[in-house]
């Protein structure tokens, strides 16, 4: 069942979605087995930024029909403390690392990619382009030109595979994917969360500390699958498909429309071993 992704051999097709599985916290809770039996064939880190971020004010979560709305706001230690405290531990995982980074401007992104590219056990870099361009205000991932410029800026810095993670809140994700691919991206991952709003039932004011949030889970799967299919049809680089995958059957749908890997996010929240279960179910489907 092993699969080749951008030249890297992975044990199976199921990786975690960025920001939805923290191996270090899982080890505190479940012990060493969370490392030795790591449910995914690669670990994608939560988005790392240059400066440390506290994230958005609580509340950060809302449950919608078969979906979750979050406004986490990318809390993280910043690249320096991550390098010092987390990276040495994450290297002990039995699977390779994919490091997800986000820069609020090109300088930040250059710094992040520059640092990460030299790290052992890191097999790819995922660029979270859901941030706004501080100069133009556009969300980089929704605009083909912005996205191409971003990839172009860092392409020369690394020989590691560059994965561009697209936002679904775009008129034409395929156009963005084509632009990213032409600018030298090695892979696309998609979808990030759909923009959604939850109101406090008591006040009818926005519930989430961050105002709006991002919707994930089975409720977004049909949208994710449509966008993934259109991007797979538009570019020839490998795709990591995600959005609401909660079973081998739903993972298989992303593979069927052309994805090379599948990422599991929200499903891990209800079952910490969802990744292994889904990989197993996928293998089972193959045997039919």
């Amino acid at each position: 069942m092993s699969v080749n992704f951008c030249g890297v051999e992975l044990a199976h097709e199921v990786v975690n979605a960025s920001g939805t599985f923290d191996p270090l916290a899982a080890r505190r809770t479940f012990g060493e087995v969370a490392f030795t039996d790591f449910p995914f064939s690669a670990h994608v880190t939560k988005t790392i930024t240059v400066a440390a971020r506290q994230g958005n004010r609580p509340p950060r979560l809302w449950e919608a029909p078969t979906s979750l709305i979050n406004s986490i706001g990318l809390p993280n230690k910043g690249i320096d403390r991550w390098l010092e405290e987390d990276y040495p531990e994450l290297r002990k995982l039995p699977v390779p690392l994919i490091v997800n980074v986000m820069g609020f401007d090109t300088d930040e992104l250059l710094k992040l990619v520059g640092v990460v590219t030299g790290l052992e056990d890191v097999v790819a870099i995922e660029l979270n382009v859901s941030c706004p361009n501080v100069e133009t205000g556009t969300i980089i991932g929704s605009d083909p030109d912005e996205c191409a410029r971003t990839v172009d800026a860092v392409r020369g810095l690394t020989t590691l595979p560059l994965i561009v993670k697209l936002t679904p809140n775009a008129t034409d994700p395929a156009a963005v994917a084509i632009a990213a691919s032409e600018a030298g991206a090695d892979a696309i991952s998609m979808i990030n969360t759909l923009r959604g709003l939850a109101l406090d039932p008591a006040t009818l004011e926005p519930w989430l500390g961050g105002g709006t949030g991002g919707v994930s889970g089975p409720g977004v799967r049909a949208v994710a699958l449509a966008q993934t299919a259109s991007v797979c049809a538009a570019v020839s680089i490998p795709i990591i498909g995600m959005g609401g995958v909660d079973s081998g059957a739903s993972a298989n749908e992303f593979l069927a429309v052309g994805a090379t890997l599948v990422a599991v996010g929200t499903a891990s929240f209800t079952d910490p071993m969802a990744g292994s279960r889904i990989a197993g179910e996928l293998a089972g489907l193959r045997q039919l």
Partner: protein
Amino acid sequence: MSDSRPIAPFGRRSVSIVETRSLGLYQVIKVQDDAAPLVRPGQFHMLSTTVGWGGETGGRPWLGRAISFLSTDGAGGIEFLVDGVGPGTHRLSSLKSGDQLDLVGPLGNGFPEVGSSDQTKPCLVAGGIGLAPILALSQRLELDGVEHDLILGFRNAEFAGAARDWPNASVSTDDGSVGEQGTVIAPLTRALDSGSRTVYACGPPLMLEAVRALCDETNTPAWFAMEAPMACGFGACFGCAVETKDGIVRLCVDGPVLSGSVLAGISSTGRVDAQ
């Protein structure tokens, strides 16, 4: 981090309900969970039902619900105390013996261990459904032969029915229908006046904040079992953020028990309090 918390089996497992009963306006559900006999008071599990979860009405409840444990027999028999405030807790409250429950846990840090040689007397304070972890701690202290205060506050007589099996508790109700009239603050003040205490508290945010302020004033060490909306319970989602003096922490892995010394104040951490 020297972290001696009881470790949970990795993944979600299914257990059988072996008994249910009502306790005041709450529901007790007892499961037999052979996989994880060790739990520490203040720890919790993420619970969902094997059948009838995922949406009686429009797809909710869908994520697991965080529930502290009320008691353990040390051999895998674990009781939960459930307050039916929304779709998830209503579904949990409707379970019958023989039904299946899916659970992940035990999760979180739990209360720090109280040694029988500790100098200060533990003073346990609970409001409403905050009862569960406090009674769990009281049960443990009794087993260990540690003398302690038990101060329970309720809205009214109906809720106070939950205290019926703890005759030694000092009970107060908002409306005075059972025990002393008023909040837990009066009996707590008397306890603090009568000698050195370490406070262990769980309850609605307003109560916890009053307890915190009092302990702060009186330099009383205090531990608070807190709540925040949780999607995962094991540090994966970063959703259960709580502001402390040391910055934002994830309540599910860094708590749910936090020391009063790191708390500047306790506000409703996201959950609209149903009490």
